[in-house]
């Protein structure tokens, strides 16, 4: 088990990374929507390199740090990783976010390169641009759900959690 000062430090890091990710995804979503709806070609051309920067410098490190600090926090406290439904669901949601983000990286890099070389027109590009809006919006909802679970910590032990509790009672 983690010592109380270590637990608090890790919790602070986890909250900062998780909420920071949500803010960064919100900024990314605003840029992605601008890229789809704006009629200003120079603005649209500037949007995709900015999205690539936000993705690689802010979102990717924060998402990974959030997942890592969350797992360490769960394993180092009485909450456990698989004992409570809210912790387990948060883990699933975070892994889902990492997976979907990994699938979007090629598209983001491609659009940033296309914007830099003035090649943003075309049906295929339009599909990738719209895809970024849909996935960023979905990601934001998933991150919001994870935040709500963290704050409310709804009750409920998994089967594994109940077995652990019963074993502890018998000791």
């Amino acid at each position, binding site marked *: 088990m983690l010592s109380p000062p270590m637990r608090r430090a890790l919790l602070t890091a986890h909250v900062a990374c998780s909420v920071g990710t949500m803010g960064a995804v919100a900024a990314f979503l605003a840029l992605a929507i601008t890229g789809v709806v704006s009629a200003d070609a120079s603005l649209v051309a500037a949007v995709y390199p900015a999205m690539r920067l936000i993705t690689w410098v802010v979102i990717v490190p924060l998402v990974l740090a959030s997942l890592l600090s969350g797992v360490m926090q769960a394993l180092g406290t009485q909450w456990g990783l698989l004992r409570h*439904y809210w912790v387990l669901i948060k883990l699933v949601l975070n892994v889902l976010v990492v997976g979907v983000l990994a699938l979007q990286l090629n598209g983001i890099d491609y659009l940033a390169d296309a914007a830099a070389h003035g090649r943003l027109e075309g049906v295929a590009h339009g599909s990738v641009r719209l*895809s970024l809006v849909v996935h960023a919006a979905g990601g934001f909802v998933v991150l919001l759900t994870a935040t709500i679970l963290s704050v409310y910590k*709804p*009750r*409920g032990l998994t089967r594994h959690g*109940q077995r652990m509790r019963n074993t502890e009672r018998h000791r």
Partner: protein
Amino acid sequence: MVDVTEGMPRWVKLLAIFALVLALVVAIVVIGGIGGEHGPSRHLPPDATERGR
């Protein structure tokens, strides 16, 4: 001491139903082609997929 076994909480069941419905909608969109061509190639540059043909 008697072991106490609890069922799955209602909020987890509701969340599971919501996730299932969402997965179904995504499957319909992907299989029905409503969201355009899906699959790994969707996330690759268009000219990269053309090169592979």
